[in-house]
């Protein structure tokens, strides 16, 4: 009896996953536990193992198909078994993401055809658009490839273009002759998600960055203390970044307007702080979230950050750990960046960029003293907050960082 291999649920918030690559082909012998394919959510990548043994009779969705969780993606069974029922069922049109923009006479979700169609699901991987949609997109400077098609077979048709916002003109590619051989790398997976989110963030928010720096002697000293042999075992893993995260949480307690989401016409502040932090992974940028960071001690925070970061790097992150952030910290200090403009992780209202620690000349009376300072770049959404409170937050954060011992001490009382 043929068995369905389901798209596994990768966390409560995950509705569907995109199949990246099939590791097995139809006809391959399969043992339970074999890796069948690699899938990803907008946040992470996973491998799907076979839950049955036999022959891979049918692949129901080709690579790039977005499949609802707990729906069959493949059939494993004995050679020769009839799998046409599954094949037919999988041929239903794909959900359309762009519901709100469609004029009233069209649908957001194509109905299930009453006639069993046998759509070749490989079509789902092609980007298709009508000539008219392309002409209209060109006239309106819209990047048609970013649109989701509401036409038959996912074809982008004119109404999709009419409903889309114009995109800035992309720089035209230079003549290839000057550039030698060119290699095109299609944006896929996380790269595509990051691209969409960052562009959307910049297009839909009023971002402003404030740069400042903070006396780093306290945290450097604290780090030295942690690394001393007698404390190494318990505190050795606490990094400067962990310390900054901790200080940020403490600072945020006094600035709930920055621990918030902007919903277009209102700001939503949260009691708990879900602190996102950027992690550079081989697959690209990922932002795991430390849930309820405001309830954690420095050691707990440090341990949770380590766990999340290594899961990201290994590709083992639970998608639920990648959602729900209320504030994000991104640290480029290790790479010598002195200041930058972090891009908001919309709808979050603010993001803190942590920069390199460098000596800074400070006037002390008539003397000039070189004191190590750490750069801080805070980007916030001017829709949700003004510059003065944001500056006050940085000042408060500087307090917390420059006197980290006191900050830690406060938690004891």
């Amino acid at each position, binding site marked *: 009896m043929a068995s369905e291999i389901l798209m596994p649920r990768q966390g409560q918030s995950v509705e569907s996953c995109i199949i990246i690559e099939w590791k097995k082909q139809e006809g391959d012998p399969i043992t339970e536990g074999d890796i069948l394919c690699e899938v990803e959510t907008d946040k992470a990548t996973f491998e799907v193992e076979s839950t049955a043994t036999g022959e891979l009779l049918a692949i129901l969705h080709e690579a790039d198909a977005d499949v609802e969780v707990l729906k069959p993606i493949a059939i494993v069974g004995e050679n020769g078994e009839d799998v046409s029922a599954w094949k037919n069922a999988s041929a239903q049109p794909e959900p359309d993401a762009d519901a709100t923009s469609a004029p009233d006479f069209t*649908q*957001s979700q194509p109905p299930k055809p009453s*006639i069993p169609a046998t759509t070749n699901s490989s079509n789902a991987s092609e980007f298709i658009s009508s000539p008219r949609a392309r002409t209209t997109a060109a006239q309106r400077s819209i990047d048609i490839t970013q649109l989701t098609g509401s036409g*038959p077979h996912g074809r982008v048709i004119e109404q999709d273009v009419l409903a889309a916002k114009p995109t800035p003109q992309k720089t035209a590619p230079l003549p290839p002759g000057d550039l030698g051989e060119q290699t095109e790398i299609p944006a896929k997976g996380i790269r595509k998600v990051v691209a969409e989110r960052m562009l959307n963030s910049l297009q839909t928010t009023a971002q402003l960055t404030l740069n400042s720096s903070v006396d780093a002697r306290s945290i450097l000293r604290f780090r030295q203390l942690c690394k001393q042999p007698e404390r190494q075992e318990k505190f050795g893993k606490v990094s400067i970044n962990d310390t900054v995260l901790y200080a940020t949480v403490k600072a945020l307690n006094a600035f709930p307007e920055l621990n918030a989401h902007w919903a277009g016409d209102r700001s939503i502040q949260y009691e708990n702080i879900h602190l996102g932090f950027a992690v550079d992974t081989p697959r690209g940028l990922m932002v795991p979230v430390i849930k309820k960071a405001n309830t954690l001690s420095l050691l707990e925070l440090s341990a949770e950050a380590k766990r999340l970061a290594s899961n990201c790097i290994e590709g083992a992150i639970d998608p639920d750990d990648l959602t729900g952030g209320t504030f994000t910290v991104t640290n480029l200090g290790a790479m010598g960046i002195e200041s930058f403009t972090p891009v908001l992780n919309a709808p979050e209202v603010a993001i803190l960029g942590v920069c390199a620690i460098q000596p800074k000349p400070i006037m002390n009376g008539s003397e000039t003293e070189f004191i190590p300072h750490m750069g801080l770049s805070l980007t916030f959404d001017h829709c949700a907050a003004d510059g003065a409170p944001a500056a006050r937050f940085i000042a408060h954060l500087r307090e917390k960082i420059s006197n980290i011992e006191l900050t830690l001490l406060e938690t004891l009382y």
Partner: protein
Amino acid sequence: MPKKQIIDPKKTRQSSEITFQPIPANQYQSNFKKELKTHGKERLIRIYEDMLIIREFETMLNLIKTQGAYEGVEYNHPGPAHLSIGQEAAAVGQAVHLSPEDFIFGSHRSHGEILAKCFSAIHQLDDQSLTTIMETFFDGATFNAIKDEAHATTREQAEAFVLYGTLAEIFARDTGFNRGLGGSMHAFFIPFGSMPNNALVGGSADIALGSALFKLINRKPGMVIANIGDASLGCGPVWESFSFASMDQFNDLWDDSFGRPPVLFNIMNNHYGMGGQTAGETMGFDMAARVGAGINPDQMHAERVDGYNPLAVADATQRKKEILASGKGPAFLDIVTYRMSGHSPSDASSYRSKEEMELWEEVDCVKSYGAYLIENGALTTEQLEALQKNTTAKIRRTLELATDTERSPYSDINLIESVMFSNQSVEKMDDREPEVLLAREENPRNNQLARKERYAFDSSGKPFSANKIYTYRDGIFEAMLHRFHTDPTFIAYGEENRDWGGAFACYRGLTESIPYHRLFNSPISEAAIVGTACGYAMSGGRVCAELMYCDFMGRAGDEIFNQMAKWQSMSAGILNMPLVLRVSVGNKYGAQHSQDWTALVAHIPGLKVFYPATPTDAKGMLNLALNGTDPVVFFESQKTYGIGEQFETAGVPEGYYETEEGQPIVRREGTDLTLVTLGPVLYSGIPAADELKQTYGLDVEVIDLRFVNPLNYDVLIESIRKTGRVVLASDAVERGSALHTIASNLTTLCFDHLDAPPVVIGAKNWISPAAEMEKEYYPQADWIIDAIHERILPLNGYTPKQNYTREELTRIANLGV
């Protein structure tokens, strides 16, 4: 069925027997004295010379085809040459007593007949007439090629003109008799009475009869000969012509002044159809003349004649001519002859023995007749040899001239496009008063129509009752009545056209107004209906022929596809074809009575294809067709005959008007999708558009195509540029539908404006089923919505009933259904 004729069972059931008269065979007795008296010595010698010229002409072509040279003149002729070496006496003998206004139509093997008929006419016409004909034909283009040659007399010059015009035509030269567009098998020259020759075996039978009908009905002088081969007696349309020509109504119902059509079916019996021996292998008539006995009580005056004696043929033709002049046609001759050459130069004569060929060579008609003249002292051996030498020189010179590309250039290929249609508007083909029985105002139906509602709805938008409205069939009637009263040459016929008023009552009321010879019932002979109409039209008349069901076009395939469509262009525009073929598209009558075959005729170059959907267009488009000079296949749907005018609020105009040719019309304006309909699908398209508007907010522009060919795309392009989406629908089966060509062109013309590929909706690629199942077969309003949903624009919450997925399209294509 005419009411005045009673079929009396007493009479028809009476015991009796059919008797036949003996059919004469080869009964001509040579009598030189008598022949000298009949023809005169000069004409007797001229007969020999004509035969000699034809023999040499064909011999030359044979050498050109087989050896690439004749008398030192080299030439490569890639086209056909079906030669009649051995058949000269038949051709020349036939022409002896024919007047220039007598017509001969022929076959693919008619070079000899063309030359003989033209030489005969030259012999009878005076110099002035000859010069005028030569100078005016194609504005002297043909004449210019030979007029600076030295000729002793105008007749000699005319003879050189005919030889040259024929050969230049065979060689596809612009100076040929048909500017090179007819070629060897179709060449002709009307001023001397040589009418089109036909590459379809037996193709001239019904066309010649139509030409005879033209002469009969329009009281024109002369007879018409169909030169067809013995093998054509195996062709249905030939038999149809025999019985059509023999209809009792010519004697019993038409005015006494007419008689029967002056047509002679002349079998050039060379005993072979290609390689098939007719008497002995492929047929069973023994002597072809026998078949006359089966056709009518006059036995078609059938006779077998020795076609190896030109004087026997001349005598027989003259006797038949007299019979035809007395209105007692048709006549039938079985002219015994023999083709020495092969069917074509590639024929190795493997089907006949050397012995047989030698037997005929021994009695060779040219040699025998020459010997006969010498024997009777009309010609000396020296004179005969001089004639032979002179003939060779003439043919050699003709060859030189016709192959000289400077003097005889090839036709510009674009000429063909310019002669595909004649595109004239001619109210009447003759000036005389049309013969009618009632003044138009006195016609009972005309008066009845005056009381009808010419718009289908009253002022509150409620439809009038079916009995009160002016319908589609009334539009057909009005256009017909108008033309009968306008053009004296205009005739109409088909099955049940007269007393019945046509199977669908379009002609009801015409019987009262129009005399028999202008409106009559034909036999159930679709090939002959169309073929005779072709002959009638190309001879100078205007005709509306009717096929009761579109499906019956299958019975008239050659006549529609090869004759009606092609003669204007094959004649380089010399001939016009003011022939409207009305065909009714059926339904409810199953697989052989319910097909829309617009695609079949649209595919054939040279036909105009009209398909009105409304009463206003039925009248306006038929007026247009009947005022034109081109062949039109005029489709009418039986679904629409009874409907009133639903779109033109002013109603169907009462006076005369014409629809603009090739123009589709916007029936409803819209911005979101273009729905193009052909024929009655318009009436499924409107409810579909209503539903799309009401339920899905989709504003559909509905365009009624009206014309398939010619077709002006401007309206369609403008609409699609606006809407970006197009569905085309007709009742024709989807595969090969004419709409696919239009859809393909629209894709080319509007590609960057299209939001989805054009969708063509047609009937299923099956047989049309019983009436009870038609809703599952012909496109319905919801099919249109289904197709839009599946192929163009998914509709919110819509569940299609028909399967228009791409998978279904490839599935049925794979199955061929």
